[in-house]
């Protein structure tokens, strides 16, 4: 695997890096780069904070009519034994 050598390449790997989805040798290489690079460390902090903020978005609520019809589906299933 080609090693990421520039900041421009490293930032494209940070999402996978945070998720532990990089192959170990590539992850080690990114870690080494981050230790010596303030810019990429700041970029990583931005991404980490983005994930944390995204996690506070709670938008999923079921539509009441749909909920009622899905409960009816359940009752029909039970009734049909």
């Amino acid at each position, binding site marked *: 695997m080609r090693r990421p050598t520039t900041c421009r390449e490293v930032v494209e790997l940070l999402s996978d890096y945070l998720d532990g989805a990089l192959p170990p040798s590539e992850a080690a290489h990114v870690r080494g780069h981050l230790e010596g690079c303030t810019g990429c460390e*700041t970029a990583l902090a931005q991404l980490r904070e983005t994930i944390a903020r995204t*996690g506070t978005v709670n938008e*999923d609520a079921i539509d009441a009519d749909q909920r009622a019809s899905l409960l009816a589906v*359940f009752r029909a299933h039970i009734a049909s034994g």
Partner: protein
Amino acid sequence: VEPSGPSDDLELIARLRAGDADAYMNLVDRLTPAMRRVARMYVRTDAVADEVVQDAWVGVLEGIDRFEGRSSLRTWIFRILVNIAKKRGAREGRSVAFASLAGDDLDRPSWDPSSFLGPEDAWAGHWSSLPFDWRGVPEDRVESRELLALIRATLDALPPMQAEVLRLRDVAGWSSEEIRNALDLTDTNERVLLHRARNRVRAAIDGYYRTVSEA
């Protein structure tokens, strides 16, 4: 916290098999909004998407006795949904190109190229101007309703598959493996979609933080 996560599966499955309405409605409440969005990717109208969701729940109730637990329960439910949605979409004569769901920008750089030194520079590809340090942003902006609204708006503007991967991963806390199985994505596609979507949200937040920090 998602009560439909893998660790709770055994209990939920047992309760579903026993005909427990609360267990079923708990799952319905948690999963239906996302199921509706996913169904809508493949069919033409919201009304048809709702029928697909309903058919999927019928499939879940009819199939739960045969569920072998090779995936998480919610992954299995989404696979039922996606299969029904794709068939229904095909029957409608709607063929959905992957690029129209995933976005056509997946291979573009996720950071503004002008942030980096150009090929003429000895340090080509390194930062030309350092990224903005968010630690200096006032706390009331970080916790603001404005920021939440911005993140929601950014999610809504993403190509639907990017948005859904991001929602399942970073809002609902699914694993990447669950997501790619649920949405029928390759490992690589799931990772690229997530990377892309996260960076779109990051760029939106960055723009907002820069603006409020200048004020």
